[in-house]
């Protein structure tokens, strides 16, 4: 009499297809997956604990590294949550800038996801094309924020710096290039027999299951459920923009791929609309003085020449460009207890300097009222929510991030069980797990 036994197969934590670190222990019957256990936590970096030890404005670098493929969305989400706690509004131009940068980030995220999935299934060319397109967008991000990936660009009450001169034109050029790459990739993948056969009807999940597991974002939309935070509860200026929410029908890998491809197109559309609608930034504040270097301005202010400096503009280090007085009003909320003053004020007079110090010193920074808020934004993987509890001090009492990947990973066994072992690779690729936000 023969005895049938199932076989355990361990995948990860260091495995080429487990981008990031995750471990999946599968129970196999031949090549069929009978059971799967997902183990996470290999990239737990104590985001929530670290946020409790720093000031509100110092949390931004940590939020960058949550979903490191689309850091600007995390930045904006955290800033919006704190702003809700403070009860302040930000200028319209800053809102447009946040939307532009968020959508650029969303495109980079989807590009990376699809590229990596294609690469894991052997389509190296598609990966190279996608990364090429991502590089165009990184150039845009770098131009505005000064960094490629971990940008810390958004501030509570605004954004770090205004857009550069002629940014819109360069953005339109890059968008055209990205569109071209998307068409090429679409030709390479969508009508590729191998790709579609490995994606179609694989890793299916029903809408009921997806809702029960709390899945949001492209994953939920691929099952045909229309839920997008940007439409359901519009934040920033999303209610002024026209875009569609692409939906799938079957909830399989191919639908997820189509939803992401369609979403990229919608994001590019949003960016284009933003550049048309965005209000003018540079205000004619009557600066008639000369442009002087920062060190010189500080020296002259120390000698008491503050009166003569009122009309002058300061020449800044490239990392601070775009945050001078000329741009300050358009990109920061007009609340002195929340936003840093324009650089001319910091360097040129004692009131500005005091204001700056008060905001960066421990025990004196931004102090929201006692209370708690939850603010959801549409991250690249789904609803990204920040729950912040304040006890009235300048450090958050508790920062909780609701990571979209967490729910997706909890549901992964549901997608895998019943399929073949080799289907793990496309399924895992298409759900787009980002370890940084999964484990935090």
């Amino acid at each position, binding site marked *: 009499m023969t005895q049938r036994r199932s076989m*355990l197969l*361990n995948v990860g*934590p*260091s*495995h*080429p297809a487990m*981008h*990031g*670190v995750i*471990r999946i*222990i599968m129970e196999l019957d031949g090549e069929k997956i009978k059971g799967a*256990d997902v*183990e996470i*936590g*290999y*990239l*737990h*970096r*104590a985001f929530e*604990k*670290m946020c409790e030890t720093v000031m509100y404005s110092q949390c931004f*670098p*940590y939020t*960058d*590294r949550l979903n*490191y*493929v689309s850091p600007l969305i995390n930045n904006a989400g955290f800033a919006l949550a704190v702003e809700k706690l403070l009860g302040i509004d930000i200028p319209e131009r800053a809102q447009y800038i946040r939307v532009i940068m968020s959508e650029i980030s969303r495109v980079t995220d989807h590009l*990376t996801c699809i590229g*990596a999935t294609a690469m894991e299934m052997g389509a190296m060319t598609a*990966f*190279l094309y996608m*990364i*090429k397109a*991502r*590089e165009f967008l*990184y150039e845009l991000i770098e131009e505005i924020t000064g960094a*490629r*990936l*971990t940008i810390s660009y958004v501030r509570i009450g605004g954004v770090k710096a205004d857009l550069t001169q002629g940014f819109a034109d360069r953005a339109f050029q890059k968008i055209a290039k990205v569109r071209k790459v998307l068409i090429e990739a679409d030709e390479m993948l969508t009508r590729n027999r191998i790709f579609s056969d490995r994606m179609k009807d694989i890793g299916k999940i029903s809408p009921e299951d997806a809702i029960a597991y709390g899945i949001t974002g492209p994953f939920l939309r691929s099952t045909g459920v229309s839920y997008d935070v940007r439409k359901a509860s519009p934040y920033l200026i999303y209610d002024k923009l026209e875009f569609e929410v692409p939906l799938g029908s079957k909830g399989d890998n191919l639908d997820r791929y189509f939803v992401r491809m369609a979403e990229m197109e919608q994001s590019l559309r949003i960016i284009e609309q933003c550049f048309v609608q965005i209000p003018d930034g540079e205000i004619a504040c009557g600066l008639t003085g000369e442009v002087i270097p920062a060190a010189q301005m500080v020296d002259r202010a120390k000698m008491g020449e503050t009166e003569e400096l009122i009309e002058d503009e300061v020449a800044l280090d490239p990392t601070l460009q775009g945050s001078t007085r000329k741009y300050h009003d358009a990109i920061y909320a007009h609340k002195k207890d929340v936003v840093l003053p324009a650089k001319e004020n910091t360097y040129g007079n004692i009131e500005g300097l005091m204001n700056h110090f008060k905001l960066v010193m421990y025990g004196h920074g931004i102090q929201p009222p006692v209370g708690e808020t939850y603010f959801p934004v549409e991250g690249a993987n789904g609803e990204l929510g920040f729950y912040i509890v304040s006890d009235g001090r300048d450090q958050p009492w508790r920062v909780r991030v609701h990571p979209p990947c967490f729910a997706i990973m909890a549901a992964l066994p549901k997608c895998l069980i019943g399929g073949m072992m080799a289907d793990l690779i496309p399924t895992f690729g298409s759900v787009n797990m980002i*370890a*940084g936000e999964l*484990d935090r």
Partner: protein
Amino acid sequence: MSSAGNFFTSKLDDAIGWARKFSIFQYPFVTACCGMEYMSTAAAHYDVDRFGAGFPRFSPRQADVLFVVGTISHKLAPVLKTVYDQMCEPKWVIAFGVCTCTGGFYDNYATVQGIDTIIPVDIYIPGCPPRPENVIDGLMKLQEKIQKNEQSRALYDPCSKIGRPDGIQGKCSTEGKIKHIEPAK
């Protein structure tokens, strides 16, 4: 040894070093954010293949250089150690990004404060994450280091597992010190 022998070994070293430095088989131990820049570096825009390092091997036994890309948490540390121990001599380690160099700003209960507390490191590439140019610079530094190494030394290294003349397997200093985590039931 005669001077002729010295001449011979140094020329042989040069030749082996030249060959080794342009055929870097890397094992990307990619965990976190730095992986995005690793991807950028590996893809067409920056193209590490120009430096002979364009071919990632996902088996540690076939790799020469361990790229530790991204934060290593205490939960992951034994895995990294195992991967390192599985690699054959000669092997090099690149600490990619500031988290692997020192722990970076993750000075907390979960994060290893620099992978050099667990495994030896040859090249540190700082940055959070390092730009691709920075990575390429680090890679070139590694190539220099490989070239300068005394190549034949590895054959007699007590840590080395490849054939010693007397046929005795060396005992690696880290052997037997790794705890393995049992898979979850």
